[in-house]
């Protein structure tokens, strides 16, 4: 067997996943057809808040091809869908039935389900269902919801306040008192920012097939979290966990939006049990936009204090966060994931964060790419520009004066996190050079001098983020219900091929390829000889799934640890076969080689065959090289970067055109640069989209106005600029692989870069803020007189 000469890690390997995806040989959940399978259609509430006073399915049940129909009352023993993150002891955790029985609390909430031989018959039969509703008062605005006397989303709770959570650096002992910083402030800037509600809008609509045959349940679902679905379905249906198998086949994007145990999965499970046949439910896009969980929807009140030389002395963050009508798995915790990131890359000495979670009659919010950290980066990066403007300083300079210097790592922040490594100087210098910063500033000055109707703005975002979710002890301290470990098994087959059984569940991230690269290096086998298995709880029996930019930063380490165990088992056998002591061997160039006599060697495949035959193994060695490792990270992962955006703003039309977008990101050691770059591109696109295009809008009755792709504006290729992405590489130091997460970084960074650019273009006109998305109308209004800024400054300019 030839050894592999060039390391796989760092190679721009083309993806193993591609062949079948580009030829249509795909395995989406909606492709699945099973014998006797029936189709579900769900009737959803047209009211944002109402009592269900009467529901009659009798006509529906007699429609052509209809096998059954069920209301919420017909589905026995509906357990509550779990929220896995009770962030405070007194958090209101309302009962969340998969299908409403007495009361609906948001438009789109399931009210009944029809089961039919084909989808069209099921959908047609929905029209025969009679439901009488008694409308109740609707509350949509968070601040109104918190007022005494506001209509209650959950009457039994007595309040719309879900929780109140505080972090104070003085109380925590990680820094000073913000109150004192405020009292002594030379400069104080306060702003209100609104993180508009967004929709993850993965391209593959959610789909679930449940097969109840043989006394066990197989759940095929387009999910990011098959292991968690298995666990929670067992808990909420009363079905023994070992009787449930969950399979995530090909999954067409998730972005946190498929990090859920959904009412629809529960309903499909319950219905298949009742009818005793496989059932399938695939949502329409309209259903998806309406009822799959939304993201962001947070009001941020930020106050920053500083000295006149630009040194930040304190930061206060007050969030009002929209939970929606119910709590999903991590709904209340999403804003808190950002709590430790508002101080970002800066050495801010005093920090106070408070967050109030609020119920409203809307679709629940939950994880969406970045989950709390885009919000944090937005706020601080906007504030740094405000500080620069206030003091007449260059915005890059203000950041330099406050950021953690390269030689100061590892650094313990005012939020109590230890950043292991980083090099903000290198990333920024590289970005500025690629961007042509000085030339663009000169052009900006020229356009200002000539009063050009098209102004040029430059926006900066220097970010870090915390990912690689997560050290389990930290999750426990934050009261999250599960841990943050990841598990990988490696099996070496007798023919020398290697199976990597990964607890991660990719949905576009290229794990098959990147994991093959890692294990090929670790075991000295060809890249092509490694196969990666995931997403099926019967195969990848143990895992914590994919979200929070964790699969490489946590799963990758488990993979390396498992590989080390395989090599250690192999070493003893190799020594025996080579008739030497294990200490006489070194692992080099993909084989165990006798020190000083490298041609005396055994490769892993050779050893695997010998182990399989087991004719001549040393005493006490089991006939197996296979190994498993479960790794709990000791720390979060802190990628960082500098994003620069040059935006042309047409003051006569409000149109924004991004002229140039440059990003330099540092994600530690890079396994596959193609995959890293692709994640950055996609993340940046979503960040730009938040700045310019996307917003989930409810009307005053609680109807989702942006209910299709005609109104919810996902950008097309014509709406986005070319993204110039480069890297620096500062390895993580908290584990041997040196990698950091990348999946969410682009989204976390991009939005403030774009907004800062547009505000920068219009600052001479007195503009300090434009609400997102910055539609042409909003930009035009800001540019032409109505200052859309909403905040005050105290303290004089430098």
């Amino acid at each position, binding site marked *: 067997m030839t050894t592999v000469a060039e390391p796989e890690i760092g190679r721009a390997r*083309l993806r193993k996943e591609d062949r079948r995806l580009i*030829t249509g040989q795909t395995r*989406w959940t909606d492709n699945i057809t099973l014998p006797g399978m029936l189709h579900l259609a769900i009737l959803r509430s047209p009211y944002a808040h109402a009592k269900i006073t009467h529901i009659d399915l009798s006509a529906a049940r007699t429609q052509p091809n209809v096998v059954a129909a069920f209301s919420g009352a017909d589905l026995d023993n509906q357990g509550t869908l779990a929220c896995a993150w009770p962030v405070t002891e007194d958090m209101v955790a309302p009962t969340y039935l998969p299908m409403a029985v007495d009361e609906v609390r948001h438009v789109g909430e399931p009210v009944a389900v029809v089961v039919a031989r084909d989808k069209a018959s099921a959908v047609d039969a929905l029209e025969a269902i009679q439901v009488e509703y008694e409308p109740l008062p609707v509350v949509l605005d968070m601040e109104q919801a918190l007022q005494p006397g506001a209509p209650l989303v959950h009457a039994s709770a007595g309040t719309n306040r879900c929780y109140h959570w505080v972090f104070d650096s003085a109380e925590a002992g990680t820094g000073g008192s913000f109150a004192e910083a405020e009292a002594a402030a030379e400069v104080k800037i306060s702003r209100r920012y609104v993180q508009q509600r967004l929709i993850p*809008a993965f391209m593959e609509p959610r789909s679930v097939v449940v097969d109840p045959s043989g006394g066990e349940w197989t759940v095929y679902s387009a999910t990011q979290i098959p292991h968690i679905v298995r666990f929670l379905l067992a808990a909420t249906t009363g079905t023994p966990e070992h009787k449930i198998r969950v399979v995530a086949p090909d999954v067409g994007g998730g972005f946190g939006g498929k990090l859920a145990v959904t009412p629809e999965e529960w309903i499909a499970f319950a219905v298949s049990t009742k009818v005793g046949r496989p059932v399938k439910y695939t949502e329409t896009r309209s259903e998806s936009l309406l009822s799959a969980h939304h993201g962001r929807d947070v009001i941020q009140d930020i106050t920053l204090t500083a000295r006149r030389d630009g040194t930040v002395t304190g930061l206060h963050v007050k969030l009002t966060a929209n939970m929606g009508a119910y709590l999903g798995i991590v709904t209340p915790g999403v804003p808190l994931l950002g709590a430790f990131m508002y101080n970002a890359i800066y050495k801010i000495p005093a920090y106070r964060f408070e967050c109030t979670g609020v119920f409203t009659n809307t679709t629940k919010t939950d994880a969406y790419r970045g989950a709390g950290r885009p919000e944090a980066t937005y706020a601080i990066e906007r504030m740094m520009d405000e500080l620069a403007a206030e003091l007449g300083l260059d915005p890059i300079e203000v950041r330099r004066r406050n950021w953690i210097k390269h030689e100061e790592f590892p650094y313990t922040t005012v939020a109590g996190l230890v950043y292991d490594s980083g090099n903000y100087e290198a990333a920024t210098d590289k970005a500025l050079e690629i961007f042509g910063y000085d030339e663009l500033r000169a052009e900006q000055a020229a356009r200002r001098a000539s009063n050009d109707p098209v102004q040029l703005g430059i926006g900066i975002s220097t970010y870090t983020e915390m990912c690689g979710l997560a050290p389990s002890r930290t999750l426990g301290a934050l009261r999250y219900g599960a841990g943050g470990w990841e598990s990988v098994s490696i099996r070496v087959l007798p023919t020398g091929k290697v199976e990597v059984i990964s607890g991660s569940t990719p949905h576009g991230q290229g794990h098959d390829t990147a994991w093959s690269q890692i294990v090929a290096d670790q075991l000295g086998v060809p*890249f092509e000889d490694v196969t990666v298995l995931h997403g099926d709880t019967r195969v990848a029996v143990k895992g914590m799934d994919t979200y929070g930019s964790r699969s490489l930063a946590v799963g990758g380490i488990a993979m390396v640890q498992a590989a080390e165990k395989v090599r250690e088992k192999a070493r003893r056998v190799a020594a025996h076969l080579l008739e030497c002591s294990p200490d006489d061997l070194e692992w080099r160039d993909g084989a165990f080689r006798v020190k000083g006599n490298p041609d005396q060697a055994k490769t892993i495949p050779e050893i695997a065959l010998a182990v399989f035959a087991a004719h001549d193994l040393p005493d006490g060695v089991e006939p197996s090289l296979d190994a498993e490792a479960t790794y709990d990270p000791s720390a979060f992962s802190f990628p960082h970067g500098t994003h620069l955006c040059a935006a042309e703003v047409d003051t006569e039309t409000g149109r924004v055109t991004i002229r140039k977008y440059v990003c330099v990101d540092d994600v530690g050691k890079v396994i596959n640069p193609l995959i890293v770059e692709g994640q950055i591109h*996609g*993340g940046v696109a979503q960040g730009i989209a938040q700045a310019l295009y996307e917003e989930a809008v409810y009307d005053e009755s609680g109807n989702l106005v942006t209910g299709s792709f005609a109104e919810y504006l996902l950008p097309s290729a014509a709406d986005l600029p070319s993204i110039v992405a480069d890297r620096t590489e500062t390895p993580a130091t908290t584990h041997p692989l040196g990698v950091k997460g990348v999946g969410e970084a682009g989204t976390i960074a991009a939005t403030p870069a774009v907004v800062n650019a547009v505000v920068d273009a219009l600052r001479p006109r007195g503009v300090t803020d434009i609400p997102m998305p910055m539609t042409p109308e909003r930009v035009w209004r800001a540019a032409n007189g109505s200052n859309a800024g909403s905040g005050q400054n105290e303290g004089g300019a430098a």
Partner: protein
Amino acid sequence: MARVNLVVDGTRYVDEVPPRLLLVQYLREHLGKVGTVIGCDTGNCGACTVLYAAPDGRAQAVKSCSMLAVQADGGEVTTVEGLAAPDGTLHPVQQAFHEHHALQCGFCTPGMIVAAVDLLREKPHPTEAEIREGLSGNLCRCTGYENIVRAVQAAAAAMNGSGAATPSAPSQAAPVEEAAPTTEVAA
């Protein structure tokens, strides 16, 4: 029920279908051609894009969710599953998507590839702006379109030789399993 007689990916099919059946549903549910997918219900996303040639016309890209199966009677449909050669050799657009990492989850990819094939038939040497405009009917949530644009540029060059808009990406002479490095990495 209505009768349809059409060719799909080179094979003739004769079927009885409900008049309301969409072409994309016919492909997926009646022919088992699951390569073409449904991404929305308003004709916006393009994931269902196929090539359709009416009996008297030439092939053009259509959104198969916005066409009834019966409307395709007598015509010829090409889906993503009909692009590669019988021996498995990928269409240059497919090959370019692979070489330029122009897909991540793959859900939009069949529609995007077919739309790109159609674009290149109309414009063999498209500029970047023409590519972006030409693909504006196909939504992708994963890639940010950057590598899709590079792939289409590379496919144009491969299919049409010199005179193509210069790809901003590694040349198509890159070895099959690995892309040529485009970025520097500084420690």
